[in-house]
């Protein structure tokens, strides 16, 4: 993967920015610095980043085409809602909510494991169809479970998704996925995309690579779903349909495949454009897809496709100064 900048800016600046950002999130929550609308958009922004970067692992780095990400969101959303409303509702949100989010992630990750098993035999278009079927199964499955409200939806979820929690989960997602991508597992995942036969012959256990990608991707899809449920306070199976998946796909292919910077860029562009285009009403649904069409024609890998902002690249990846003149 090529890098956007060859020399990394100092790490300290990144850490300082990060700390300032988290402090700002804390301050906003504590002192109510912004109105509810802005807060809602900012939380959506964070959730979108998590969704985008986690789907990018499968669709970008691994080069498969999954349209089932909204299904993992649904699993995370419903399980976390069960935890916080039905099972552990007596708990202090300080520990209960993280538990609910992790539970949602684990639920989605476990199902992602099954989808990963299916990907051993199937690739490309056929795997895309399987993920579509998976999405439909999840949606109609939830519709038929009265315990979680069936088609009427799940009501009475408390608003636990604060800006700070969203920021913490966003940073955690980006950090862990970055670490994975720049490890032997991440390179294995990329090798599967590049040439599966050669990857196998070079000792990459491609099955394990696929499972890792699917499990990690769906785990964070579930985390995003959990945050989403506790942001909206009401979830309903029809929210998690192919349109939701398509939105995440737009973010991934807009920002750039196989790139953390691209994922953030895609989520940023999508979140704020769809808010900015609100006054256009229905025309919004024309403009966003149109942007996607133009991108696919002129920049099929997205704005930052396969390139990375050097701040997101681990220090060890850069050649030491004395090595190369």
């Amino acid at each position, binding site marked *: 993967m090529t890098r956007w900048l060859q020399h990394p800016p100092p790490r300290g600046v990144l850490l300082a920015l990060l700390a300032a950002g988290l402090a700002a999130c804390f301050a906003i929550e504590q002192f109510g610095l912004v109105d509810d609308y802005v807060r809602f958009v900012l939380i959506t922004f964070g959730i979108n980043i998590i969704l985008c970067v986690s789907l990018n692992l499968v669709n970008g780095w691994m080069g498969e085409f999954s349209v089932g990400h909204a299904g993992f969101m649904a699993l995370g959303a419903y399980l976390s809602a069960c935890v916080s409303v039905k099972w552990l509702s007596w708990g202090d949100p300080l520990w209960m909510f993280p538990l609910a989010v992790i539970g949602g992630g684990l639920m989605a990750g476990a199902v992602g494991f099954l989808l990963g098993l299916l990907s051993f035999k199937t690739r490309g278009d056929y795997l895309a169809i399987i993920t579509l079927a998976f999405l439909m199964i999840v949606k109609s499955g939830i519709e038929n479970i009265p315990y979680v409200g069936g088609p009427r939806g799940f009501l009475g979820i408390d608003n636990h998704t604060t800006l700070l929690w969203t920021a913490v989960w966003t940073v955690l997602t980006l950090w862990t996925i970055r670490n994975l991508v720049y490890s032997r597992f991440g390179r294995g995942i*990329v090798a599967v995309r590049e040439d599966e036969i050669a990857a196998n012959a*070079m000792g990459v256990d491609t099955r394990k690579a696929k499972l890792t990608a699917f499990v990690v991707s769906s785990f964070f899809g579930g985390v995003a779903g959990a945050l989403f449920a506790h942001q909206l306070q009401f979830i309903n199976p029809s929210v998690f349909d192919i349109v939701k998946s398509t939105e995440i796909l737009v973010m991934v292919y807009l920002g750039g495949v196989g790139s953390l910077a691209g994922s953030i860029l895609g989520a940023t562009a999508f979140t704020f454009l769809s808010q900015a285009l609100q006054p256009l009403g229905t025309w919004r649904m024309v403009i966003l897809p149109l942007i996607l069409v133009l991108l696919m024609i002129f920049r099929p890998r997205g704005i930052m496709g396969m390139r990375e902002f050097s701040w997101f690249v681990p220090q060890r990846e850069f050649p030491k100064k004395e090595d190369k003149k």
Partner: protein
Amino acid sequence: MKPLLEVRGVTMRFGGLVALSDLSFDVTPGHAHGIIGPNGAGKTTAFNVITGIYAPTQGDVLFRGESVTGCRPSTIAHRGIARTFQNIRLFRDLTVFDNVRIACDAHARYSWPGAMIQLPSARQAEKETIGRCTDLLEKFGLGNEIHERAGDLPYGSQRRLEIARAMALQPSLLLLDEPAAGMNSAETLNLVEFLGWLRDHFSVTMLLIEHHMQLVMTFCDRITVLDFGKTIAEGTADEVRKNPEVIEAYLGQEDGHE
């Protein structure tokens, strides 16, 4: 000496097509062993069976005395058999460095949850891998191209990189599928020199498929000749050259078949 690789009565059928029929041969450690034969003789199929891409219909492949038949290609690669491909299969969109590093990763031992939370052991292993790859690329004369996209390298360098990538697995047996394909005679001479260096420097046993007779005859200690998925001759270069069946397979019989 005990053979490093033993191919025992391997038959490979694809539906009605018999690509390999009762193929047997041994590879002695330290040797450069050539496989030659006309197009469609089953040479590449034999490679694909040895490296686990195909599971043979019948027969057994033993590596260091242990059966590797039916093992996954990645397992076989970990056991110490590395290969290159007839039509170069590099990870074209990745850098030269990452191409080699993916193979080098076979020797790193850390778990994916460990990698995700950056355990010190995972970071240390990563640094060691980087060091090993840098050294290896330096040895193969690719030290100045490490950040280039592999697909952008000139053809000769791509071949060299593919061999470097295979050697990053630290194999004891290296399978080369037509390393001289697409090279002119000067480049082929360079290749012979390079293969000799490879054998001496890494003391690796080689099994190679090649159409370039001069290369095979001068470089290989032992040669197996295949035709229609069967061994028709085996021996040293001189023995093979004089074998009437080999001459027939290559040049045809005067009065034609049957």
